[in-house]
């Protein structure tokens, strides 16, 4: 990454500008700015490092030297107990539950929202904008509003204490954002392409399935990633719907572990860290999609 001179075109070009940039970088305000960035970075990393390293300590170490980050003696049993030992069945069950809920919710949201966004983007019919606004409406109010009636509704549908009872509402709540992001993307695909497909005998569904969706793959990846993050981290709805350690998703499981074993801090840290890892790995691979999705939609729900 070469240093760019684009900031300094007010003075000169070439070597002069580069010198200018270099001097600006070493200026006092520049140093202060860099110091601020470093401070914020430390503030972000500190809790994560504390949690990871804390998982390698004994409770005795945590209590005796609370201000020392590095373990005086490395203990692996906290992590191995969660991953392979005593708590492994519960942990892996909860990880699987999270995967199931996220999988169903995301597949459903992306499939249904693609259809709806296709209609909103490329078909003209009376009432279209009204229906579209109905979905946009879903972005405008806090989803917590629906929690109590959802609990009743899911119970009446016979889905309480069932992962579907979480996945279906999650999918429904993810629809507005997904549709709002997909519609302009679907709209941007040239009409000529659709005309050409029709002349070649393509049906509407054929165009949607064989031409539009493949072209929209980047947008589909973006909305899928956003929906995964949203579903994976969901807490309120699973808290209300799911019963017992075997049904909980990871955030719920981690919270209940932390209250149940509150005196065993090192193990709580280990459990929490292990339950965070999927999210961090996912972030490492999908950061680009998450950012492009959030900045294009600029809507969180």
């Amino acid at each position, binding site marked *: 990454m070469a240093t760019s001179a684009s900031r300094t075109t007010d003075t000169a070009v070439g070597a002069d500008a580069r010198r200018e940039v270099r001097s600006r970088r070493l200026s006092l305000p520049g140093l202060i700015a860099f110091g601020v960035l470093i401070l914020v970075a430390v503030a972000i990393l500190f809790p994560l490092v504390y949690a990871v390293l804390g998982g390698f300590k004994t409770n005795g170490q*945590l209590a005796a030297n609370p201000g020392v980050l590095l373990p005086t003696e490395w203990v692996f049993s906290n992590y191995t107990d969660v991953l392979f030992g005593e708590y492994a069945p519960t942990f892996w069950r909860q990880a699987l539950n999270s995967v199931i809920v996220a999988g169903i919710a995301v597949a459903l949201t992306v499939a249904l929202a693609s259809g709806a966004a296709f209609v909103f983007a490329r078909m003209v019919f009376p009432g279209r904008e009204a*229906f579209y606004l109905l979905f946009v409406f879903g972005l405008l109010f806090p989803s*917590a*509003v629906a929690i109590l009636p959802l609990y009743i509704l899911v119970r009446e549908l016979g889905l309480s204490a069932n992962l579907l009872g979480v996945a279906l509402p999650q999918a429904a709540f993810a629809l507005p954002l997904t549709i709002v992001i997909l519609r302009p993307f679907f709209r941007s695909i040239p009409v000529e392409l659709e005309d050409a497909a029709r002349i070649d005998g393509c049906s509407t569904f054929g165009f949607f399935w064989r031409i539009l969706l493949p072209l929209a793959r980047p947008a589909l990846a973006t909305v899928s990633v956003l929906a995964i993050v949203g579903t994976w981290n969901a807490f309120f709805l699973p808290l209300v719907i799911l019963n017992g350690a075997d049904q909980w998703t990871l955030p719920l499981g981690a919270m209940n572990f932390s209250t149940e074993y509150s005196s065993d801090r090192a193990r709580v*840290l280990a459990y929490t860290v292990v339950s965070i890892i999927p999210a961090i790995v996912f972030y490492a691979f999908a950061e680009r999609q998450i950012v492009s999705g959030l*900045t*294009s939609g600029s809507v969180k729900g």
Partner: protein
Amino acid sequence: MTAISRPARRRSGPSTRWLTIGLFLLPALILYAVFVLLPVLQAMQYSLYKWNGLAPLTDFVGLQNYATALGSKTFMTSVGNNLLIVVLSLAIQIPFSLALAVLLNRRFRGRAIFRLLFFLPYVLSEAVTGIVFSLMLQPHSVVDSSLSNVGLGALVQDWLGDSTLVMVTLFVIISWKYFGFHMIIMLAGLQGIPRELEEAAYIDGASRRTAFRYITLPLLGPTIRVSIFLSIIGALQLFDMVWVMTGGGPVNASSTMAIAMFKAGFRSHQFGYGSALAVILFLCGLAVALLYQRYVLRRDTEGAVTAYGG
């Protein structure tokens, strides 16, 4: 659904077109109607009854639940706490995010790493964030002892147990998790502003500060307003982190509207009263959305909220 079939009857010719529209739109519409719209309407209905969530819905009490809510000290504390988070977010978190976005909009080695790092907390769940911070903030844990180690032992507090301090502590943790989100949005907004505009200002003799104040900031307006809107909606429905860290305590000092609603429904089995709280939450959100729509959205281009790319 009836709205779709009505025009179809009028124009029976292209019925396959309507069939297509129906097949594409109805599945999403049904799921959305059942799990989003219906519950919101049901909350409005339940809020007019005294109801424990199990017995038949018969005990109609009119607006009494709302009167109870507005007279409830606990609920008013909760509303106040939500407002406090809104105010602190707008006064501190948003300007802080903007400042960092401006810093990261300069080109320098390593800025991609900062961006990646600052945004990282956004993908962690509020629940696990809350667990880790709870452990750090316990008395004699890492925060207290670090303060003592650097000679600031006098600043040690009961961070989550002190009823006047607890909301501020929670706000700091909320900011830890969400400032990166707002920063990313504003960074995208900054990058959408053509460099030439600022450069032209420099050529005309403007200082960097003047150029920022009169060129960049106004052009960033739509982005900042989106950020503000999302921040308010988020602050209104604050639940997960508070529930994990304090459960609304000590003695309701950190209760929020969503916490009060949850407790009414699932601790006291007052589903009617809880629904009234939900409707009040809904009205707060709606008021914010309408104000946004009325005063903000109209001024901004459609692109700020919906356009892809940008």
